[in-house]
């Protein structure tokens, strides 16, 4: 395969808002966004709430349709595929959500939750093979095999997010979209999950589209970053370029808003 794994071209998404008296108004949530993510790299999209980054994530997941533009995954335009081909494509892209309390069905065992995306596979393993796959996915994210028989409420937030990551990895996806995947966690747990994502990238060559409002997290994890403001991607570049020499005022505002703990020695460690 040549070219980037994920290529977004001129992506636009309008939402039609119905006002009183039948008048309609349209809201452009994503406005002409183009970006490319190389296989095996971590691309962060950073911006404040409401800037359209979650809409972008939903479109990349093919859970929403764009108004204009294309999303190519491994060269194929997601929205030009037949429903059947799209269903087959879904195994290549999975998602990790922000809230590990809302993203796991409390009535399902962890094993059942982790195995759910196997539904996408025509030749999904059954019985013992399936269990083995679930156990491997759990161990991959640092959870013991017996976690499979337990239920989400028995786990902490960080462990739940590990379960969500195991679920995202079970189909061996090429791309994982992490939508604010660490924002709901304590700082120390955030660091653990970020380290886990980095190690999964190194071990499996995973490509990650990492969506966050926290520019400090970007510094920890991403190779490249795109800064989003009001639906537009205002600045794109490597993390070093963008964080050390921001060209846009908006990026500088985001950087200035980031609280720092002086002397912690954690920041810039990847420089």
């Amino acid at each position, binding site marked *: 395969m040549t070219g980037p794994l994920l290529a977004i071209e001129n992506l636009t998404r309008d939402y039609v808002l119905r006002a009183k008296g039948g008048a309609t108004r349209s809201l452009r949530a994503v406005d002409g966004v183009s970006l490319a993510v190389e296989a095996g790299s971590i691309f962060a999209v950073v911006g404040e709430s409401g800037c359209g980054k979650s809409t972008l994530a939903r479109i990349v997941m093919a859970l929403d349709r764009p108004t204009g533009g294309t999303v190519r995954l491994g060269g194929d335009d997601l929205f030009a595929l037949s429903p059947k081909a799209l269903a087959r494509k879904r195994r290549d892209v999975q998602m990790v959500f922000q809230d590990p309390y*809302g*993203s796991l069905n409390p*009535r399902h065992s962890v094993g059942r939750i982790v195995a*759910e*995306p196997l539904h996408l596979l025509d030749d999904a393993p059954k019985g013992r093979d399936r269990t083995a796959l679930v156990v491997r996915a759990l161990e991959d994210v640092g959870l013991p095999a017996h976690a499979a028989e337990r*239920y989400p409420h028995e786990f902490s937030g960080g462990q739940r997010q590990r379960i969500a990551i195991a679920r995202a990895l079970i189909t061996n996806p090429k791309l994982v979209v992490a939508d604010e995947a660490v924002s709901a966690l304590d700082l120390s747990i955030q660091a653990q999950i970020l380290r886990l994502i980095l190690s999964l990238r190194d071990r499996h060559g995973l490509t990650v589209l990492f969506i966050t409002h926290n520019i400090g997290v970007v510094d920890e994890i991403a190779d490249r970053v795109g800064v989003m403001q009001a639906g537009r991607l205002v600045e794109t570049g490597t993390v070093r370029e963008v964080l050390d020499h921001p060209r846009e005022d908006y990026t500088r505002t985001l950087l200035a808003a980031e609280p720092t703990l002086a002397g912690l020695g954690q920041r810039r460690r990847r420089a």
Partner: protein
Amino acid sequence: MTARAVKLRRGWRPGSVPLLVGGILTALLVGIALTSLVWTPADPARMRILQKLKAPLVSGLLGTDQLGRDVASMLMRGAFNSLTTAFAAVGLGAVLGTLAGVAAAANHTLDAVLMRICDALFALPPILSAIMLGALLGPGALTAIVAIGVFMIPVFARVSRGAAMQIWARDYIMAARMAGKGTARITLEHVLPNISAQVIVQVTIQLAMAILTEAGLSFLGLGLPPPAPTWGRMLAEAQTYLLQAPHLALAPGLAIAAAVLGLNLLGDGLAARLDPRRRQAT
């Protein structure tokens, strides 16, 4: 399930008192109803005219009625008749209503149609409609079951629709969609298990309502036909003898009150125990 069983033993939690009292009353009701199938102090239909209108303990535990039938035995068999009608009616309402509710929550077009049908059903007065149904089908168990059950459909539809809509907004539903699962499958695997608690609570509360309505219908002569004893008809027949034999009215009256109270308390206790918002407070 085992985790919940363990939790139940951990002292008093919200809803413990209503749950306990309601549970005991309901267990008593069900126990008496089931016992009446194999044993009653006397045949509830046997008339002994010479023994008529005896006071409690003079003849039998609760005395006899105007035809000399044993009140305690009639009360026991009446509990069974009331409960089976109520269960069948609530079953009808719960199954159809929950189906309509989850279908409405999953599909916008269906939502508009089903909810308008529910509005229309809500607009009909249940007792009057039951009288009409009685005229149509003739009095009997089926009339009572359909008349009570049909009016419970919108209740269950609204409860399950609201609960299901909350579930549809959860991230695990989106995860299931990413796993390529369709609406029906997601409803079955994710929505129904997560709204079952609310539906069960509603079943308990509606059982109380159904017992009350069933008593009302048999009071009006639209329930099970004689000689099958029902609490409602016992009350109706007791009216004439209210001064002579007040125990004839008191016995079924208190039985209805205890059954409705027990089921309501049980529903209330279950709601406190199962409602995630109230549970988080502990």
